[in-house]
Every structure is written in structure tokens, then in C-alpha cells.
């Protein structure tokens, strides 16, 4: 017996490295399959690192602002002129948009299709960090459960949709971008109203378009907007433009790619679509400004509004 134990110990000592390295290689697989368990350790580590990240961004941002706002003012006059011109142009556009809105309301009244959609409750959040790995598809934002943010809520930008909240701590939240391989968004063509699904590929500049019917007549440059539905993004927000349309010889669906409307590498602030009233007053953002002009709900369709 003693000899057997000694032999076993000797064997374990000899293969100790192989056993432990094998353990460290298989341990992630256990973690992967236990992913639905409570992620208290993850939250604790994020609660520890996120304030440091926030402090770094605020400190460096402050120094950059002082430099940019008070010291580096060489081209200010030229920029001022350009901005004035831009403001005049936008005022003209705003006036036109106001007329279109009035006309739209009048037509809706005529059709007795009052818009029953609840206004979106939006909360602005600063981007304080990105996923640690260059191959990750996440943002960390400076809002959490203290601000009424919940997991699963939609995150958008003025250009279009960004992603969904995956993990929330008291003051911070992680956002999974729509380009992540496990992300999927129900979509609607703004022109043809055909339905499809936009799936992430892991590439920041491209998504796949799935389940788009060949009969939809999608063409390059078609704008896709969110289709809405329970648990998804509110209806009518920009997703991106269709490119590389391939009509296969057989099958029901066509193949295509989607260029996201948002440049994810240039996001400094995002908007969270709150699913329940928060104690904090949301920023006065007009949801209509986030929608493309031709993406108003079709007759009979209702905006799904924020989802839990």
C-alpha cells in the first residue's frame, strides 16, 4: 500500500506540470459552460477597475480640454465662420422639417392613426473604456443601476443603434456592440419595408444580413432600421446601409452585408433607452431626431418603445 502511494506520488510529481497546465486550459471551458451563474466576481472586479478607468479618462480629458479650449485657439475664427454657416443651413433644414412634421401630423389625423408610441426615455452616458482585448466588442459607460440602468436595455447614438447593456454595476455598465458575433437585431428596410436580421460578425465595419427575402428587391445603399419587437431595440432607429447584395441562384434568401451607421471607434457619449422611469431626469433628447426621415412607423404598426 505504502509502495503504491509512493508510486502515485512520484507519478503526480513527474506529471505535475502537465496536469496543472491541462487544468488551466480546461478551466475556461467550465467557466464558459457556467456562464449563466451569478457573475458576482465579475461585478466586483468591474466595480474595482471602472472608477480607476473613469478617473483616468476624466483627468486626461480635463487636461486636453484646457489645452484645446484655452491654449490652442489658432483656427478658432475660421471655425467660427464655418459653424455660423452650418447653423444657418441647419436652421433652414429645421424649418423644413417642422413643416414636414406638421404635414405628417395632419395626414395621421386624417387617417385616424394617432401615434400611440410612448416617447423614449433616454439617458446620456459617457464612454469611459472599451473592452480590454482588441478583439472585444464592448464599451464601458459611466452609468449603472444607481441611474436606473438595467441589463438588456438598448444603447443608441444620434447616428444609429450601438448595442445592448450586458453587465451592470452600481455606477457602470458594459455594452455589447451590435457587431459582436453573438449579436442579432431584427431589421426593416426603410424603402421596401422587408424584414430581415442583422447579425454581428466580429468585424467593427461589417455585419451579415440574414433572412432577407429574394423578393424584397434590396439594393446597395438601402437603409435598414430596427424592426422593434419585445426585448429588442425600439422601432425605426438606424442600423446601417446594405452593401454587397448577392442574389443566389437558389434559395429563399439573398446574401448581403450591412455597414453599421455608427462608427464605434469614435463614440464618446451614448444614449441609453431606459425601460422604466428613472429617478434621474433624462436628457431632453427628441427621439424623432434619431430616426431617418422615411422610417416612421407604417400604418397599423406601433412603436414598441423601451423594453425590459
Amino acid at each position, binding site marked *: 500500500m505504502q509502495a503504491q502511494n509512493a508510486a502515485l506520488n512520484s507519478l503526480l510529481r513527474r506529471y*505535475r*506540470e502537465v496536469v*496543472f*497546465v491541462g487544468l*488551466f*486550459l480546461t*478551466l*475556461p*471551458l*467550465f*467557466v*464558459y459552460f457556467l*456562464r449563466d451563474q451569478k*457573475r458576482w466576481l*465579475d461585478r466586483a*472586479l*468591474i466595480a*474595482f*477597475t471602472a472608477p*480607476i*478607468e473613469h478617473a*483616468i*479618462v476624466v483627468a*486626461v*480629458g480635463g487636461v*486636453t480640454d484646457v489645452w484645446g479650449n484655452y491654449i490652442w485657439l489658432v483656427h478658432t475664427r475660421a471655425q467660427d465662420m464655418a459653424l455660423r454657416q452650418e447653423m444657418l443651413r441647419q436652421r433652414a433644414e429645421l424649418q423644413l422639417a417642422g413643416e414636414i412634421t406638421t404635414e405628417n401630423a395632419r395626414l395621421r389625423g386624417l387617417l385616424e392613426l394617432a401615434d400611440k408610441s410612448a416617447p423614449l426615455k433616454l439617458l446620456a452616458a459617457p*464612454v*469611459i*473604456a*472599451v*473592452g*480590454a*482585448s*482588441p*478583439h*472585444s*466588442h*464592448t464599451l*464601458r459607460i459611466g452609468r449603472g443601476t444607481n441611474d436606473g440602468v438595467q441589463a438588456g436595455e438598448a444603447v443608441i447614438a444620434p447616428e444609429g443603434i450601438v448595442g445592448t447593456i*450586458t*453587465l451592470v454595476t452600481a455606477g457602470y455598465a*458594459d*455594452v*455589447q456592440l451590435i457587431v*459582436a*458575433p*453573438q449579436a442579432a437585431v431584427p431589421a426593416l428596410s426603410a424603402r421596401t419595408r422587408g424584414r430581415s436580421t442583422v*447579425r*454581428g*460578425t*466580429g*468585424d*467593427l465595419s*461589417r455585419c*451579415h444580413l*440574414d433572412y432577407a427575402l429574394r423578393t424584397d428587391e434590396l439594393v446597395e445603399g438601402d437603409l435598414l432600421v430596427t424592426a422593434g419587437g419585445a426585448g429588442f431595440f425600439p422601432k425605426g432607429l438606424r442600423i446601417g446601409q446594405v452593401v454587397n447584395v448577392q442574389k443566389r441562384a437558389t434559395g429563399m434568401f439573398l446574401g448581403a452585408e450591412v455597414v453599421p451607421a455608427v*462608427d464605434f*471607434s*469614435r463614440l*464618446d457619449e451614448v444614449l441609453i433607452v431606459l425601460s422604466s422611469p428613472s429617478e434621474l431626469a433624462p436628457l431632453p433628447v427628441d427621439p424623432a431626431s434619431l430616426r431617418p426621415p422615411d422610417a416612421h412607423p407604417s400604418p397599423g404598426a406601433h412603436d414598441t418603445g423601451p423594453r425590459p
Partner: protein
Amino acid sequence: MTLRNLLIVCVCFLVAVLESTIPVLLPPFMRSLRADLLLAVVLYLALHDEWVQGAGLSFFAGYLSDLSAATPAGIYAFLAVLTFVIVRTTASAFRADGGLEAAALAFVASLIHALFATLLFKLLFSDSSLSLHIAWLGSAFATGLGAMPIFALLRRLDESLLPAGETLGPGARARAR
């Protein structure tokens, strides 16, 4: 846990924080140049640590990446340990004590790491793109640049903790004990 392991864990935390915040602070046109600094730590461990200790610390470094990746937990931890095993197995072929050698090793390792990550994503999520991204090159270049200060920091840390007369190299920590 030894003092050295504790310090490596602290370095991993520091590196993870820097890796997450630097892209936000850079001008928008430079934000695609994202350095994988935790990979540089794993490479250093593979070249200087014994098997068990290095694999454990690599697992922790990968886990930190997992924390902010919003992918199912474990993917980056697996990739980090796999990278450690591959580089450790072939460690005798490398002489990367720092400087340009470390940068070159990190550049190549970053490309291989990106390929493994993409293959793993393809395996787990069938819609993942398998194309070679041009962004990989930018990221690998940034990782190469970032590896130089990381190697220098860790080397200095090791030199301050090693007994007099001991030199760094594969298994050096084990010999020191």
C-alpha cells in the same frame, strides 16, 4: 501567493485598465491601433516563468480580458493559456529580453492570437467573420510597441526580486526556489 505573483497580478490590473482607457483618449483616427498589452504580459510569462505558475498567471490575464469582452466568459482565458503553452513550448527558440526582439515577438504573437480568436469565434458563433482584417495589423503593430515597456517593467520587477547571481530565462523562477 508569493510577492512576485502578487505584483504580476497588480501589473495585470494596471495593464487591463490602460488597455481599456487608452483607445478612448486617443484621437478618433488612431483608435483602431489597439494594443493587446495583456498578451505582452502572457508572452513575458511564457519566456521567463515555469509552467504551472506561468499558466496560472496567464489564465488570470485572460480572465481580465474576458471581464470586459461581453463574450461568454472563458474564451479569452482559454486563448491566453493556449498562447502561453505555445510560446513556452517553443521558448528556447526565442531570445526576447526586451527592446525590438520583444516588439517583433509581440507583433507575430498578436497576429497568431487574432487568428486563434477568430477561429474560436467561428467555432462558437457560426456567423463570425473569418476574413483577415486589416485592423489586425494595426493592433499587432501597437502590441509590438506596447510590449517593449511591458517587458522592461516586468524584467525590472524580476531583477529586483531574484537572488543575487540568478539570471532570467525559461524556468528561472523555479531554479531560484
